[in-house]
């Protein structure tokens, strides 16, 4: 309920104050993703979701890219941002409002960025945040296959990537894990916001199946999801469902998509 209120209030505020800026020199490389079908991990049925084709940024948004955004839009600077849009540690690796500093290399992904800020940036570049289905659709590609979620070895590889402890400063984007579509770092760098990150509720006690919200749970049986062995998906959905839109985490960044 609190979450919903936040989103409602923020929509009103955004509506009132959003000004569409000119397309910035953000140098985002857009990769075309073909239309297709996606089997949601959390579904009660196994009906696929039909997805239209879209463009996705080849990498996560970097500190340098986000810096251009806050230079052009002062209200998204650390000192100016309204508390409702971001927690106090917003852009916490940056040295100052418009200075990156040692802990935030220009080509590393921008992190400690709230959903609101990520959403505003995406609009500014003429795009939006990916829906979770779109994100998972692209993320299901291994280096060689468009959909590798059914490969046990792929799931295992992902878990290994996830459990790697982060290093500060974070490494650059676009250097690892280029997938089938030519998109980098869908796994293994930092988690990413999606437009509807909290629309799938992993029950706060994840074993609860009786709860009406509980589309997804885990414990003994995992009968609520399509593929119980896909533990890497549990990890992602747990993470998403623990978030609120104002949260700024050291291990969450974002990328943008654009409709075709």
């Amino acid at each position, binding site marked *: 309920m609190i979450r919903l209120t936040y989103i409602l209030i923020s929509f009103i505020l955004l509506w009132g104050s959003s000004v569409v800026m000119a397309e910035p020199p953000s140098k985002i490389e857009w990769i075309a993703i073909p239309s297709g079908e996606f089997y949601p991990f959390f579904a009660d049925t196994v009906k696929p979701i039909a997805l239209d084709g879209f463009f996705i940024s080849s990498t996560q948004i970097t500190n340098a890219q986000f810096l251009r955004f806050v230079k052009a839009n002062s209200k998204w600077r650390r000192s100016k941002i309204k508390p409702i849009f971001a927690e106090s*540690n917003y852009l916490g690796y940056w040295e100052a409002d418009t200075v990156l500093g040692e802990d935030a290399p220009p080509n590393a992904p921008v992190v400690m960025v709230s959903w609101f800020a990520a959403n505003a940036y995406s609009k500014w570049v003429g795009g939006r945040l990916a829906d979770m289905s779109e994100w998972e659709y692209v993320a299901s590609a291994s280096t060689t296959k468009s959909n590798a979620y059914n490969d*046990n070895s792929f*799931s*295992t590889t992902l*878990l*290994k990537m*996830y*459990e*790697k*402890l*982060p290093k*500060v400063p974070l490494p650059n984007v676009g250097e690892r894990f280029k997938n089938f579509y030519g998109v980098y770092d869908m796994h293994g760098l930092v*988690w990413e916001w999606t437009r509807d990150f909290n629309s799938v509720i*992993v*029950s*706060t*006690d*994840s*074993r*609860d199946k009786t709860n009406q919200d509980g589309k*997804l*749970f*885990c*414990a003994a049986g995992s009968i609520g999801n399509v593929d119980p*062995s896909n*533990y890497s998906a*549990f*990890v992602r*959905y*747990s*993470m998403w*469902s*623990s*978030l*609120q839109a104002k*949260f*700024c*985490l*050291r*291990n969450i960044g974002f990328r943008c998509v654009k409709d075709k």
Partner: protein
Amino acid sequence: MSLSKKKISLSSMLVLFAAIVFTACDGGKGDYNPANEKVVGETKAELTLPPNVPAPIDPHRAATKQIVHVEVLEHEGTMTDGVTYTYWTFGGSVPGQFIRIREGDEVEFHLKNHPDNKFAHNIDLHAVTGPGGGAASSFTAPGHETVFSFKALNPGLFVYHCAVAPVGMHIANGMYGLILVEPKGGLPKVDREYYIMQGDFYTSGRTGEAGHQSFDMDKALAENPDYVVFNGSVGAIAGDNALKAKVGETIRLYVGNGGPNLISSFHVIGEIFDEVHVEGGTAINKNVQTTLIPAGGAAIVTFKVEVPGSLHLVDHSIFRAFNKGALGSIDVTGEENKKIYSGLLEDKVYMAEGGRSLTLPKAKGSTEKLAGSKAERIKMGENVYKQLCQACHQPDAKGMKGVFPPLANSDYFANDPNKAISAIIHGLSGKITVNGEVFNSAMPAQSLSDEEVANVVTYLLNSFGNKGGEVSPEQAKKVRASGTADKGGH
């Protein structure tokens, strides 16, 4: 019932009335309801890392508000020599910090998820009466802190653990610990208390495979662990880290089992539990040899140590103890008492396994790391020695008189390393003479690769006062091909 009530005499009514008034004033046990006990004041709870336990609660202390702060940390740690693993922990250790309260206490629980962590976490305390045992109220993103409170209604020893999906993975990475809810008036006084918790771990490489190991979901689903350990790693409470006690002392162990999969047959070699709080509850069983501890369960065991020596703590599903790490010890010092005991415990346990070779199949697709230099060979051999050999031949390689021959300054293989190689590959039984002493025992064949045999023998040749040299995997291969077990001096 109603009939007999009518017949109760006035005098007995009075007695009954007096009794009720008396118990009410006294706060006697029969009427005591922890839910109604008034909470007086607040304190920050003292938490301890394993194997330590916070001091017992003053039996006269009123029910209090206890503030508990637990920080979740994801960090790299050592599983065994040469093997690292990424642990997820409550408070930096596996098991997590020990929490000690009494029934009637109100606990204000703060769960902090460190900002550098990559995963969301929560906590389910089995001591909590309420949805998810607290999990429903403590779902915490990295860099956040959640707070909830509960009243301790039931005394006992309870497990806590993380319950975020995938639950099994969070527990398998070490997210469990114990909370003790003392009964009102406390537990009987003892001389020493320790905190032990068993857990099973699933690694990408086979048991003992060097380097950093990832969590292996397939092995976890198959319930086939590579490590079964006390307190998070092989040797966490053995060797230099052994628990300490003195002859004549009474020891209480708070023993939990985090799982995620295995049930523990907890046993202390050479002791009988005088008392066991069965499953951590109120029922007390006496004179118990082995107590079963379910995954997600606990037991409180007490025993008096009567003689000096090393008591070995094991999961008596015994391959786990000797091959997967579920082995700890209590070093008891003090006066011998020959009337009660004289002899060696290890002999018996060893003979139960004698003459057999355990073959550990290599994990599919794993490739063995090869030593690149003599120095590296020695280093890798040292790990093999520590994992496999020193349990019998001892950390100083001096062996044990009459049972395990010394490997230090050994004249047995000084001029012919093949004898050491053969003993490892084929086993060795019967009479042998080492440094002038006769041994008539049996060593089982070890399932080591040629590379590992070469490493450990090279390590031996260059350690413990032996005179140096290097053995190649090819040499080990030859000895392996050349035939069967030596029969000692025959």
